[in-house]
């Protein structure tokens, strides 16, 4: 049994500033290499998009019945990835789980960048990207409006609301840290942080308003995050296609989103801990807590899968049932079983304490979990389109090289945004870690004082001959 603390409460505040600010300076060779890899990945996607833009949707293999495929599966994947950062940060903030403090900043950044990546896919999928603004409700002289009954329009509203709210949540939470950066920076950084810190001085009025605003934002973000993925699920569930017209889709999507987001937090946790030497902040007990949370969500996701399978099995809808059998035994069977293995079996590694404490193992497991979640999204989109109501339309689809290149490049885009973020903004919240240290130190002092008080009281009682608890 390990009995470690989430954080060493004796750590000096000045050291916290120093360690985090150091992580933003002097990028090492490994950093530039990572940036180069991300740029190359992005270049692949840009080239593929250029081919698609100039040729049309043919190179992407999008046709009838495969009007949605890899792009929409990847869109759902990135939307899902965006869920954990802000949602978990908001929930843990409201329930006063202070172990979130060293890890929430990069998780929130992950949310923002995942959304920025996800938002690209419906646009890429349009083909005619120059018409993307048609989804927005703008006043036109022809009096045309988008169809507000369509879940695709709901998507546009929900994602833009979630993106702006997540960015504000990330930004507001970062203001006191930006002031620290302003006070320690020189040159262009000083100018940037001076503008972004909005004149923060640590004034008691600023702190009081800040706390209230942060709490209000958290309260808004929890239902918003749930609504966003429910709306994404409505893209499917509002149709009458077999495999999509499922009542449990909204909670299933939300659980899947939380799951993949948590797995991504573990991946980035290990990377940041290793590359930025954040061992004192991203500690093993915090990793253990994150893993336990991920395991719990994995089991919810597994349960919802079972509910879906069993309701289809006993539902007597022949199309749905045939599709379920085809998923498990047909051409997509290897994807299905890999999804089940990665999504429902691999997370049991998170339940083993020894494995939870081993960072390289957790890194590999987190990648496996996200592989499973990517396959889950593929299994939602592709089989239904491949084996729908009309057998004459049945067609198996694996995605073209253009689609794969754009999906591959999206990871480069996300990685590049994240890499730029961690060098410009503090990836660990300095003021909140200080608060965590401060509260824990106070708690320790109070405990010591209480222990001394009780010891003195017991001594006095034994001296006066009064019976203690044992005697009573």
């Amino acid at each position, binding site marked *: 049994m390990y009995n470690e603390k989430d954080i060493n409460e004796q750590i000096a505040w000045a050291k916290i500033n120093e360690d985090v600010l150091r992580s933003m300076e002097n990028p090492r060779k490994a950093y530039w290499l990572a940036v180069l890899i991300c740029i190359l990945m992005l270049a692949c996607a840009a080239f593929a998009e250029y081919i698609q833009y100039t040729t049309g949707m043919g190179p992407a293999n999008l046709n009838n019945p495969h009007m949605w495929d890899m792009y929409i599966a990847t869109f759902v994947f990135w939307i899902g990835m965006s869920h954990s950062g802000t949602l978990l940060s908001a929930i843990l903030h409201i329930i006063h789980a202070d172990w979130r403090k060293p890890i929430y900043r990069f998780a929130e950044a992950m949310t923002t960048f995942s959304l920025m990546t996800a938002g690209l896919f419906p646009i890429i999928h349009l083909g005619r990207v120059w018409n993307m603004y048609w989804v927005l409700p703008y006043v036109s002289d022809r009096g045309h409006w988008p169809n507000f009954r369509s879940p695709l329009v709901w998507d546009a509203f929900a994602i833009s609301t979630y993106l702006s709210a997540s960015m504000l949540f990330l930004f507001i939470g970062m203001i006191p840290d930006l002031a620290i950066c302003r006070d320690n920076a020189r040159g262009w950084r000083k100018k940037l942080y001076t503008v972004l810190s909005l004149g923060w001085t640590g004034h008691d009025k600023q702190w009081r308003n800040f706390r209230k605003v942060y709490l209000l934002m958290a309260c808004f973000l929890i239902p918003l995050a749930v609504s966003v993925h429910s709306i994404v699920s409505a893209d499917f569930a509002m149709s009458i296609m077999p495999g999509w017209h499922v009542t449990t889709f909204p909670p299933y999507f939300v659980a899947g989103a939380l799951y993949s987001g948590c797995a991504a937090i573990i991946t980035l946790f290990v990377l940041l801990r290793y590359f930025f030497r954040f061992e004192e902040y991203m500690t093993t007990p915090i990793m253990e807590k994150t893993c336990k949370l991920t395991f719990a969500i994995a089991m919810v996701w597994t349960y919802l899968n079972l509910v879906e399978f069993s309701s289809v099995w006993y539902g007597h809808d022949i199309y749905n049932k045939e599709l379920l059998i085809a998923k498990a035994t047909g051409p997509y069977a290897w994807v299905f079983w890999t999804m089940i293995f990665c999504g429902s079996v691999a997370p049991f590694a998170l339940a083993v304490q020894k494995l939870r404490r081993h960072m390289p193992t957790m890194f590999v497991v987190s990648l496996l979990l996200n592989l499973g979640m990517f396959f889950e999204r593929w299994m939602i989109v592709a089989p239904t389109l491949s084996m729908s109501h009309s057998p004459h339309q049945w067609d198996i689809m694996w995605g073209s090289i253009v689609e794969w290149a754009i999906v591959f490049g999206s990871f480069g885009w996300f990685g590049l945004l994240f890499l730029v973020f961690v060098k410009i903004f503090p990836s660990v919240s300095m003021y909140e870690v*200080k608060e965590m240290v401060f509260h824990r130190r106070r708690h320790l002092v109070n405990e010591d004082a209480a222990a001394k008080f009780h010891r003195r009281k017991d001594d006095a009682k034994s001296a006066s001959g009064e019976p203690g608890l044992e005697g009573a």
Partner: protein
Amino acid sequence: MSKHCVMGLFSDFDEAFAAISDIRKTKVPGVSVDDVTLKSPIEHPEIEEILGERPVHVQKFTLLGAIFGVTFGFFFLSGAQATFLVQPQGGKPVVPLPSNFVLMYEMLIFFGVWCTFFAFLFLSGLLKKRHTLYSEKVSLDQVGILIDVDEDCLEPVKNLFKQHKAVEIREEVIK
């Protein structure tokens, strides 16, 4: 008589709070706790007890933003739908409430969040010109007490700060 601003920097909250307690006990005539501003690297949980209740009004703007969002959402959507009769309705109502509720909900949050943010900017005095008595040590690990005082109260305040082991004392003339 000139008006001065004096700032004492303390190495911890305990000393700073002790100094504020003394001000509360009117140990410095002519200076009240309402004149005191505390600057700190973190928000102390007991700051309300020391400085007294100082109300925060930001939530009122949040409520206004949310109400505006949901109302605007309803009228905007139904207005657009009511004037777009070219679109086939398929026997469904022109203004379908269930699907509009989804978008009204999103607009409630959108406007609520942005109103909260702008209220935060204005109510917490951000974007104002920074006081020249700001010390970078406040963002590191020290706690600052800032008081605007008349010239005759300047020395007693400085003495009080010294008595409570202020690490540094700065002052400037403001009027």
